[in-house]
């Protein structure tokens, strides 16, 4: 029996030996859903371009489910908490595969866009682990990458934050995720300084481990004065060797990120984040390029739990060697609770401008898109 098998068997026996009552702490079930009514306010940009033919579908307005979360949390005792989260989105799913011929000569697939659940979080959180103020998370856990920015931006229902938000738009994956399998340790040294470190598969919640390398993340936050914080972040992972020129025998990816948050004025949050994703895999004409950008956002709560205004400006560079692909985005909107805080309405407008719109859609005649979203946020 290998060492790891022995350890797994020991843990299993230990868990089974726990009295069942000790696993029944405070249990909560919650659901969060957000969906949009989206409509185009321009018709010539790369995304909003109106087709020349009247018979071609033009999805310039639609209801769109974006996310549905189902959470189960169990606070087993004051130090131990368990979370299980189903996430659901409607990214196209292959629902069947048909093979034809004998021997097989053809393959066809069917797809649909139904909301389908998948496991996003499945972890234990151990507070005061080893020493007071140390927190251990283990399992399918939240990574350190987006969390500070997402918490301050506060409108994940409206838009993902900078590092997470452009993968789908640009098609340029930057190997960053909100959840992965592994463990993190967080420790608060003092109110002025806290730090965290994590180790993960690096394949994120959508894939099993596919190589021998692990991703590491480190983060440090200093808050020199009340309401002003600076967060530094770094991650690194080796990748399998690649043969394409220039041949890399030990390629790696890494991200540097710095956030700053100003929260000194009551009910007002001003935040900024800057990042650069460096890697040995993305090349253009044999030359490596980076992905990067910065974002500035603010929100002002006029009436807590009732009404808030928010705005954001992003500047994103998907390829440091090809600045025509650069884009900027302005988001502005408000957050309104008409009846009860379980139901929010968040109308918001997006203005996206491109260095050269034709790089994203060859037929575009404008370098900008304007989209209006009426976002509905439900939480119960």
């Amino acid at each position, binding site marked *: 029996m290998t060492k790891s098998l022995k350890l797994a068997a020991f843990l299993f026996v230990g868990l089974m030996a726990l009295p069942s009552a000790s696993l029944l702490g405070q249990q909560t079930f919650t659901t969060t859903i957000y969906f949009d009514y989206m409509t185009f*306010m321009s018709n010539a940009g790369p995304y909003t371009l109106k087709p020349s033919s009247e018979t071609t579908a033009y999805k310039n307005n639609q209801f769109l489910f974006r996310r549905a979360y189902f959470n189960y949390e169990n*606070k087993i005792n004051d130090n131990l908490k368990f979370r299980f989260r189903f996430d659901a989105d409607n990214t196209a799913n292959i629902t069947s595969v048909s093979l034809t011929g004998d021997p097989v000569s053809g393959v066809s697939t069917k797809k649909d866009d139904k909301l389908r659940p998948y496991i996003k979080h499945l972890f234990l959180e151990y507070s005061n682990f080893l020493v007071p103020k140390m927190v251990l998370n283990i399992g399918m856990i939240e990574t350190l990458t987006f969390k500070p920015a997402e918490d301050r931006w506060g409108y994940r229902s409206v838009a993902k934050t900078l590092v997470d938000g452009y993968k789908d738009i640009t098609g340029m994956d930057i190997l960053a995720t909100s959840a992965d399998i592994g463990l993190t340790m967080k420790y608060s040294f003092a109110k002025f300084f806290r730090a965290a470190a994590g180790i993960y598969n690096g394949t994120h919640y959508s894939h099993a481990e596919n190589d021998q390398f692990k991703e590491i993340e480190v983060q440090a936050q200093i808050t020199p004065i009340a309401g002003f914080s600076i967060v530094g972040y770094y991650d690194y992972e080796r990748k399998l060797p690649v043969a394409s020129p220039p041949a890399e025998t030990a390629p790696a990816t890494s991200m540097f990120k710095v956030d700053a948050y100003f929260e000194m004025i009551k009910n007002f949050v001003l935040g900024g984040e800057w990042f650069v994703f460096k890697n040995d895999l993305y090349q253009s004409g044999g030359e490596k390029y980076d992905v990067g950008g910065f974002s500035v956002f603010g929100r002002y709560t006029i*009436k807590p739990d009732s009404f808030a205004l928010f705005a954001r400006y992003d500047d994103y560079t998907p390829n440091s060697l090809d600045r025509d692909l650069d884009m900027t985005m302005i988001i502005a909107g408000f957050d309104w609770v008409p009846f009860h805080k379980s139901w929010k309405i968040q109308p918001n407008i997006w203005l996206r401008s491109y260095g050269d719109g034709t790089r994203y859609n060859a037929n575009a005649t404008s370098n900008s898109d304007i989209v209006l979203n009426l976002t509905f946020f439900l939480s119960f």
Partner: protein
Amino acid sequence: MKKITLIALATLIVLGGLLMGAKTIQVKGSDTLVNLVQILAETYMEKNPGSALAVLGGGSSTGIAGLTNGTCDIANHSREWKAKEIDLAWEKGVKPRFFAVAVDGVSIIVNEKNPLNEMKMSDVGALYRGDIKNWKAVGGPSLGVSLYGRQSNSGTYVFMQEHVLGNKNYSTDMKEMNGNAQIIEGILQDEGGIGYVGVGYLFDQSGKVRKGLKVLNVSKTPDGQAFSPLDKAAVDSGNYPVARALYQATNGKPTAASADFIRFEISDEGQQIVVKEGFFAISPAQRAENEKNLR
């Protein structure tokens, strides 16, 4: 362009409506304090027409989080702030100022059919940790112990854990009730029950301890004398070992409206209401500290 104009107009209308609404002081937090502060707020609003206060419970943790997140103006809490709450407040630019508004003897209660009249504090801790499961072990009848307590967002839950359980975990057998009133209802129907509640929840309309309940005297040390939480002198002197101040917190110096309400709470008139509701008045030293924090 027409669409954008319409949106801007709608936003302005909603904004205007919100800004023109009367400013209500939002008070949130401790369930031990909620009834008392509601009565104080009602009296204050009667005396000050045009003032508006909304008082909600939810537990000390809820109030502290509300103050940190900006969803309330005053947080009620029946325990000290935890280190992680202080750290988070610092990060969010919240500098809490504390005001003691009442003193509470956390009362250990049993069903009146339980023959015990007093307990050692260490035994109360042992019961709640689940180390002792039968009343016989502490001089009572041969009867299983049913534990009634609060949920972990309650300040009383945390206070008991820190001061009586020696910072150990509660027994997983403890029934975690929503509030003081639910604990009392449980004890009234359970001969083997033990619970803890704020002293202000013990009394009926006539000002007597509710029928069917027994309030235990508690001794600080195994050989020490046991005292009652109903004995103000014992609570003030610290002889009753499970006593505490009940606090309110504001984000920095309170606004004029919040400060005026707090001044009323700690005035002689406010403190008479505190006593009438079964709690104890704050000490001169606590009053002086409050005055300092109001400036």
